[in-house]
């Protein structure tokens, strides 16, 4: 084995082979000893990185120039590996160290994020996005090396098969041209291994196989990465009790897993703050998505499941109690086609479920912007979702006009929507409707919109933003209060 000068010190590390490539599947856990301080720093920095990945993912088009710029910046600042060629130029922080940090920090966060379905989903999503970013950047030769090293062996189509299917292949993907069919490889992948391509219909399917062009192999790799990580997290969860018994680690891991949520607005102390009668008067503080739902409810005296969840949880977040919620929904539905009896049988259960009084008694948190934008798109008959994301631009324009937004502001908002900056568009809408030059917050949650709006309309009563500590963290011992504050501070601005 060859050792370069700067690696000599670490030549004894049996895993240095792993760090030869800039990217890895995290198949093997790190075996060395590290200090508690390093453990903590690595974990916190990777979490920062993943938080950035999350935010950039909604604010910018993925892999657009802005996205790349900011990602590179963040990777560089936090000393994580990013571009293989420019890395060699950095003298003070050798690749080896960065890759080692990458390796170790990933496994530490696995410990923190394996415990619940929600945590796992979040962690996997960000790791996949990060991996996608770094893999796409690899030069073709390194991509091929990576594939072979990680056992992704699929059959390729013969020339004869390619000829027979050439017009179907051509029509199945924008990236496939006559030249590509002739010159490049097509992999025959079982459709279960190419779900991203199947979902967006970017690949030709026949008899259960997806015919993936060479350049799209990244999605297959991602799928594999996602599956492996998912399985690994399930395994990790099982060995968690042993880890938790270590008192040095337990508190830190707890903080890490709660920090990602930031503010979740499921605060108990808000209960009763807003009463039913006040709903119509505080409606000005509703973000557009909730105004839309409220209006649809008043007009049709009904909302479908998606709408009930999104609006119902939002109302819970602003302080409507369970009894009031039941009263509110019932009074509205009764005016429609539902009689009181049917309401009690069919809909009341759902509302109590929302407040954690039924079933598995989970106290559901109001949906963040991310959730509203990305999951459960509305279909026929639905009014939920994010108007900036899900409404036709024409209809959105009309709606904005109805709320007396000036034409120049409407144009600005529509531009932001076109660029897929939905939360920024909503923020602009906030600024225009509240007559403020610059909203001092970074919008990530409808309830946040409500609180900020109430502040402005109420004459700015709250001098600083409330830091709402999720209940579990309140159990932490005193000496770690500082760490928790630091972590909270990290994620305040989202």
């Amino acid at each position, binding site marked *: 084995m060859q050792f370069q000068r700067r690696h000599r010190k670490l030549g004894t590390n049996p895993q240095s082979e792993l760090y030869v490539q800039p990217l890895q599947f995290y198949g093997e856990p790190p075996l060395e000893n590290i200090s508690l301080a390093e453990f903590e720093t690595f974990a916190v920095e990777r979490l920062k990185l993943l938080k950035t990945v999350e935010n950039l993912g909604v604010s910018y088009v993925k892999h657009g120039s802005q996205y790349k710029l900011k990602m590179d910046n963040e990777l560089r600042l936090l000393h994580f590996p990013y571009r293989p060629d420019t890395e060699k130029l950095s003298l003070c922080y050798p690749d080896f160290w960065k890759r080692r940090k990458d390796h170790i920090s990933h496994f530490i966060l696995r410990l923190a994020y394996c415990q619940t379905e929600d945590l796992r989903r979040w962690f996997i999503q960000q790791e996949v996005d990060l991996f996608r970013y770094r893999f796409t950047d690899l030069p073709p030769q390194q991509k091929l090396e990576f594939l072979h090293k990680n056992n992704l062996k699929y059959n390729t189509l013969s020339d004869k098969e390619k000829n027979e299917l050439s017009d*179907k292949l*051509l*029509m*199945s*993907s*924008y990236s496939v041209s006559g030249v590509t069919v002739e010159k490049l490889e097509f992999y025959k992948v079982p*459709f*279960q291994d190419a*779900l*991203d391509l*199947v*979902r*967006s*219909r970017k690949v*030709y*399917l*026949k*008899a*259960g*196989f997806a015919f993936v062009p060479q350049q799209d192999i990244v999605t297959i790799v991602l799928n594999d990465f996602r599956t492996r990580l998912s399985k690994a997290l399930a395994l990790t969860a099982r060995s968690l009790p042993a880890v938790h018994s270590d008192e040095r680690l337990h508190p830190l891991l707890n903080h890490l897993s709660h920090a990602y949520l930031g503010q979740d607005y499921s605060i108990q102390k808000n209960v009763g703050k807003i009463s039913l009668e006040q709903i119509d008067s505080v409606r000005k503080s509703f973000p557009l998505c909730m105004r*839309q739902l409220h209006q*649809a409810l008043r007009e049709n005296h009904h909302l479908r499941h998606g709408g009930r969840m999104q609006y119902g949880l939002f109302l819970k977040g602003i302080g409507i109690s369970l009894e009031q919620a039941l009263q509110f929904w019932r009074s509205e539905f009764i005016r429609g086609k539902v009689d009181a009896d049917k309401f009690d*049988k069919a809909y009341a259960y759902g509302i109590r479920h929302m407040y954690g009084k039924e079933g598995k008694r989970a106290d559901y948190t109001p949906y963040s912007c991310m959730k509203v934008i990305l999951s*459960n*798109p*509305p*279909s*026929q*008959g*639905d*009014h*939920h*979702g994010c*108007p900036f994301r*899900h*409404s*036709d631009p*024409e*209809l*959105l324009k009309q709606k904005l006009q109805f709320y007396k937004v000036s034409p120049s502001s409407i144009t600005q908002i529509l531009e932001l929507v076109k660029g897929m900056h939905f939360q920024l568009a909503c923020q602009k809408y906030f600024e225009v409707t509240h007559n403020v030059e610059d909203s001092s917050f970074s919008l990530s949650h409808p309830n946040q919109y409500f609180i900020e709006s109430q502040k402005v309309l109420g004459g700015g009563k709250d001098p600083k933003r409330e830091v709402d500590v999720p209940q579990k963290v309140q159990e932490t011992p005193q000496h770690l209060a500082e760490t928790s504050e630091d972590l909270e501070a990290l994620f305040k601005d989202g």
Partner: protein
Amino acid sequence: MSYSDYDPACLPDLLPLYYRRLFPFSQYYRWLNYGGVQKNYFQNREFSFTLKDDIYVRYQSFSTQNELEKEMQKMNPYKIDIGAVYSHRPNQHNTVKSGSFQALEKELVFDIDMTDYDDVRTCCSAADICSKCWTLMTIAIHILDRALREDFGFQHLLWVYSGRRGVHCWVCDEAARKLSAAGRSAVAEYLSLVKGGEETVKKVVLTDPIHPFISASLEVVEKYFLEYAVQEQDILGRKECVDKVLALVPEDILFFLKSQGTVKKGQHFEKEIMLQYCYPRLDVNVSKGVNHLLKSPFSVHPKTGDYALNEQKGELLRKSGKFSFFKLKHFFFFFFSFC
């Protein structure tokens, strides 16, 4: 289609007869047992019953066909749902260590509901259906059946009338039953073309290149479009309907058409209009979850008295989408087989 000769009030009298004389227990068991290849496959299957007075019981499970029969004849459920095959017997799920009780497998299912087409049909709305709008189901079945077989390679499909206003498809292949939630949602999205809620006027947007799946689906739609949309639904008959159609045509095309009567290449608005009116509208949420419960074939619909029965694919195609509804009272037995 009038249902005036069916009275929901007689259900309590008719159900026991139905469960004693008509319900095909042995074929039902044979289906869900899947040849007994996997151990405890039938025993770990969840059923749920809706009983009189809307009492709903989940996590029902049975050891043998006989036990199933006895229980159903005793409880006379108004509605039966089939759920997933779990890691343990569902009726013992409370004794299992928390977190270990998991839904493992289930058929891949699709639900097409006529109410989702309300914005594009003029003959009926909500839960009503008639022979004019039933063509939509015919189109849906043709398109989905082809795609599931030819694109995804599935072979064992069971198409069922849901009992009131739509159809369900049960894909029973082993690969389908073992499919993950992500896999199910990917398949459902591949099959979805009509997107958008109340706030979206134009629900189908096509861009080049047109995927072979879309082309194949269009072939089916084109076959039925004239008969369905123009004749049966009369979408050009009244001004308001015409306006709805025109709302889907891009502005520059409208202008062009008005002035010259020809159309430039590369626009797909005619295809988009046809698809918006006719392409199947799936409820993706039904297909996504491994543990999602769906109304069982041969379950009676309490409001119509019709039971969710199998549509022998050949029969349906030959009758060109005309479908006759059987009333419980007449004790018709509908011959069925797996496709």
